[in-house]
């Protein structure tokens, strides 16, 4: 009865991961295809990456996407962390139910609804749509993800650590920055990364809230995809996949390293060295 893999487990895992990865792999492979046809292999070539560099519209879109991503992820991380602290630490305040509802609802809310409602807000407020409206839209829906990630870390955090800090004379503000924040930092970083990639991915919200001169990469890709599959799009997608994969892998190696260090430390402590 010990944990072990049966042939059934191995088969389902194999098929599952082939299903998850094969389409992406095919997409990446065909970005290096010499032919314009994405179904016939005609030899290795990086020409589509080269032609991307000359595609000013695509480069502009990438630049907008990057700025929106960094800015919205950063604001969302601050807001989401505050929301998480509120949810975990402040048990009673007026409108708590509404607040927790507003934090969790965007996680499952169809993005067409969120997009439409935000657009109507911006129209009603009569603000020029563009970079800032996209950033606000992204901040709003990604802060909820940050809140959930940070909240799950805060719940497991030993409350007595904060109490000890206050007992030793730290003000609540100092306690937060010197004790709580360092301890929840991994979750905060993970929240930022999640917010950034969600912003990078988003098509629907951006499309609703964008204006003149603020085309994000997904909007650009979407408009091209509707016209058909091209190796250039494959190349853009490959670059995006590469960036995200490298980011995630670096982050997970960091986590693993820290874990290994912790185990080493514990061993050292156990042997009294």
């Amino acid at each position: 009865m010990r944990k072990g893999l049966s042939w059934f487990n191995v088969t389902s895992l194999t098929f599952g991961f082939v299903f998850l990865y094969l389409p992406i792999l095919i997409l990446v492979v065909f970005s290096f295809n010499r032919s314009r046809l994405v179904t016939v292999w005609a030899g290795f070539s990086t020409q589509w990456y080269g032609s991307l560099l000359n595609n000013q519209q695509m480069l502009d879109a990438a630049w907008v996407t990057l700025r929106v991503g960094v800015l919205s992820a950063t604001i969302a991380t601050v807001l989401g962390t505050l929301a998480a602290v509120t949810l975990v630490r402040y048990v009673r305040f007026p409108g708590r139910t509404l607040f927790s509802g507003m934090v969790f609802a965007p996680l499952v809310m169809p993005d067409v609804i969120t997009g439409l409602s935000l657009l109507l807000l911006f129209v009603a407020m009569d603000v020029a749509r563009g970079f800032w409206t996209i950033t606000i839209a992204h901040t709003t829906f990604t802060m909820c993800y940050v809140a959930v990630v940070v909240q799950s870390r805060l719940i497991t955090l030993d409350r007595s650590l904060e109490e000890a800090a206050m007992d030793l004379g730290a003000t609540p503000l100092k306690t937060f920055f010197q004790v709580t924040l360092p301890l929840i930092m991994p979750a905060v970083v993970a929240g930022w990364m999640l917010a950034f990639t969600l912003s990078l991915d988003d098509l629907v919200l951006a499309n609703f809230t964008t204006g003149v001169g603020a085309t994000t990469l997904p909007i650009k890709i979407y408009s091209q995809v509707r016209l058909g599959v091209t190796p250039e799009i494959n190349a853009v997608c490959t670059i995006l996949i590469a960036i995200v994969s490298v980011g995630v892998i670096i982050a997970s190696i960091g986590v693993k390293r820290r874990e290994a260090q912790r185990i080493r430390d514990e061993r050292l402590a156990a042997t009294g060295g």
Partner: protein
Amino acid sequence: MTDTSGTAAPAPGASKLRWLVVAIPYLWLVVFFLVPFLIVLKISFSTYAIAQPPYEPVFDQLSTVWERAQQFTLDSYRYLTEDPIYLRSYLSSLRIAAISTVLLLLIGFPIAYGMARAPSNMRTTLLMLVILPFWTSFLIRVYAWIGILKPEGLLTVFLQWIGIFGPDQQVHLLNTDWAVFIGIVYSYLPFMILPLYATLEKLDDTLLEAAADLGARPFKSFWVITVPLSMPGVIAGSFLCFIPIVGEFVIPDLLGGSDTLMIGRQLWNEFNANRDWPTSSAVAVVLLLILVVPIMIFQNYGRRTAQ
């Protein structure tokens, strides 16, 4: 979360800080999440106008009550009931979401189960492998399938190559409901696997040992112990997939055919092509009303498991 022991008496001077911590995210969500919904609600009760913005305001001016009552209209909602396309879209969305959720469960459960049974040093890597596609763009993942499913695409090439299809045969999957199901299952699979894995991984091994000790064979233990105890994950995963799938836009738009009716797509078209704001707002309000029940169940459930 509603544990009262968490309410520390605010220290003097700390209450201002407390207030700020609550107020900042609260205000943000009210302004950018709650108020927009109220506006959608308001516009759905307005009349359609060609002018920009394409709706007649309801409460904007300080008009008389009489005027308000006249401007308040259910036209958009009446329109939704008159044109059968809306009803059919709502029903079709629910049907597609329900079928997709069942498919996701059938495909996701064996994978999550395999992950949970894997040796612990392998589990982190497997988890990572499931999460990685989740980080890559939704749009990219849907796009990847276009190249595979289109008539002259890779699936056709592959089937012709292994000899199942003749040189003149092609797969006709793109722009059908089948392609939509494939796209949805592919895109939402991590959302189903992760909660399933979380409950299966927590499952106490000694329960299975106890079942075996009392005479249950492994297959029997799986059905009477593992499956019932993984229900929290099944429920969480199902809601996590079902709710957004109902409002899905990108997948039916890129993979579905012109006859693939989904309400998210209908809303998008109503808004972008027809520029009919009141009707699209009404579509959104009704969609939200349909989703309110599952969303409430999901939130209630999330709150209970968080405790």
